[in-house]
């Protein structure tokens, strides 16, 4: 905090504070650098270096990555993750906007309907009754479940944030549009949605990240490996330590110049993280705005 008269008086506390935050930041950045170096290291390089990587790759090979890119489950996993992130986010934001806009207007039963939505934030049937429902709906082993099942298509919290944003748009705009003969549909799509673009962008990003990171629905509702999302494959490979997946990826290589299993796992983690890391610098400020939007509005 730059207090007048106190500027640049660096005390012991400041050194401690800066050092602490540098340590915290390093704890985030270093594991990523370590994984990157490990994934690019060759078996011989690792052996020569005594088995470990610190900062730079030991030896250099892309084989850990090319080994995975030969795997069909990487493509299908990526496909379903990208599919749900794009289609799921689009439909979710579209349907949530429709409902949020209606709730921001004077519709009959508004209070009842709002309560009907909000109640589900505090009480749900739970895991098993939802599972039985999904089963009865025939959505088991069906990729549509990624888009339809809760909490994805409608998220009450996001919907209320959108509604609060619509409430801040002056009624006079809608009024003049109505006088010009515009109906509710035109008003929503040609006037309200463009005005709500900042809120829509924020909510879209939240929904998209949730979709990218989701794994539990794929794990419990979808059994066929070729329909599961990428996160589930990474989970199987590293957390459940499925030997089958690993040996599949490795059989292309003869023992001598094959990357170590650790390099391949590091590559697998990075393959899943890279899209988030790539878009993160650009979208970060929208997320921060969104937290403030959700907290202060109302």
């Amino acid at each position, binding site marked *: 905090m730059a207090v007048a008269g106190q500027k640049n008086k660096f005390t012991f506390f400041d050194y401690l504070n800066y050092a602490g935050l540098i340590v915290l930041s390093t704890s985030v950045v270093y594991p990523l650098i370590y994984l990157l170096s490990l994934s690019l290291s060759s078996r011989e390089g690792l052996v020569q270096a005594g088995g470990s990587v610190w900062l730079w790759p030991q030896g250099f090979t892309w084989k850990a990555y090319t080994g995975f890119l030969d795997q069909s489950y990487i493509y299908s996993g990526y496909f379903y993750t990208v599919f749900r992130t794009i289609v799921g986010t689009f439909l979710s934001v579209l349907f949530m906007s429709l409902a949020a806009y209606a709730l921001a207007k004077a519709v009959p039963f508004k209070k009842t309907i709002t309560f009907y939505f909000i109640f589900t934030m505090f009480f749900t049937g739970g895991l098993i009754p939802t599972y039985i429902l999904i089963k009865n709906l025939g959505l088991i082993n069906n990729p549509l479940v990624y888009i339809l099942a809760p909490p994805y298509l409608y998220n009450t919290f996001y919907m209320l944030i959108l509604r609060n944003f619509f409430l801040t748009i002056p009624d006079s705009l809608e009024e003049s549009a109505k006088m010009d003969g515009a109906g509710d549909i035109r008003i929503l799509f040609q006037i309200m949605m463009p005005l709500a673009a900042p809120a829509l962008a924020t909510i879209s990003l939240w929904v998209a990240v949730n979709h990218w990171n989701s794994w539990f629905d794929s794990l419990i509702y979808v059994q066929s490996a070729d329909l599961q999302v990428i996160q589930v494959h990474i989970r199987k490979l590293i*957390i459940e330590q499925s030997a089958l997946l690993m040996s599949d990826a490795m059989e292309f290589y003869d023992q001598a110049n094959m990357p170590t299993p650790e390099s391949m796992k590091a590559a697998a983690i990075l393959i899943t993280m890279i899209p988030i890391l790539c878009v993160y610098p650009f979208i970060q400020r929208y997320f921060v705005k969104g937290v403030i939007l959700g907290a202060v509005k109302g």
Partner: protein
Amino acid sequence: MIYIRIAPVDVTSVREMYPSFRLKGKSFHKGDGFMANQHHSLRKQIMKSKILLLFLLPAVVWYFIFYYIPMYGVTIAFKDFSITKGILGSSWVGFEHFERMFDSPDFSRVLRNTLVISTLKLVFVYPSGIFVALALNELFHEKFKKVVQSITYLPHFFSWVIIGSILVELLSPSTGLVNQIITAFGGEPVYFLAEKAWFVPILILSDIWQSCGWGSIIYLAAIAGVDPQLYEAATMDGAGRFRRIWHITLPSIANVIIIMMIFNVGNIMNAGFDQIFNLYNPRVYEVSDILDTYVYRVGLVQMNYSFSTAVGLFKNVVALILVLLANKLANKFGHTGLW
């Protein structure tokens, strides 16, 4: 969870501000709607806003199917559910599953673990966001602050599958970085994720790692609203760094701190399913198995649908009561709760 208020639109006052318009023989009233039209019949109101109701229809149907049908589905907690007979066809057994649950040593273990882990998180993880916010606020260099913020927010965007995978890799007893360091200094490698003494500390530390940066945003926003003149006056009076933090910054954000704490307490039945599910293994079940992971294993792995639903229902009812109490408390502190 962050708090929001469901603000009703004050239709009548808006209507007083604007006179009615007349155009092409139709009359338009500013703010025409449910409240303003109580003299109209319900049918007319519905016809009038039929497009808006149509916008709401998919949401109402979706919530009915995906939330309210499973709420009816909890009746299997009082039945002997079998897939072939269905929910309606299965026979009632009363509170049998609940009696079995309260007698079960597994249940008391998972309940205890849930409460222990979430209490530890309340004590260590929840304040970490406040500390990061205070630390960031004391920096002199804007650029440095921005960089630290960008870096520390990042783990919030990783799923627990990713963070769990990173931890499994870093903590691996044979090839993990941490154990390489330990052995380089002549120590014995430790299988961290399979040691009961290490598991819970790892949960707490990794949760702090993931959430402290992101958790600081709301406090930073509150700090930004503090009047700089207060700091200037305090400095003139000879107050040092810590006294300014203690007497100005903290009291100014006390409301946010209290509200966030109340909601954290209301959320105490959730010890963090995603995190624990991606880190635990049978060797540490004794300290790591929580209600949610237990419901998952008993229900979806062992197919004990009714018993698992009973445990889940117990958890949801207690959680609901806690959240309602938390909200009441939040309103008492002069703040808008969730409604």
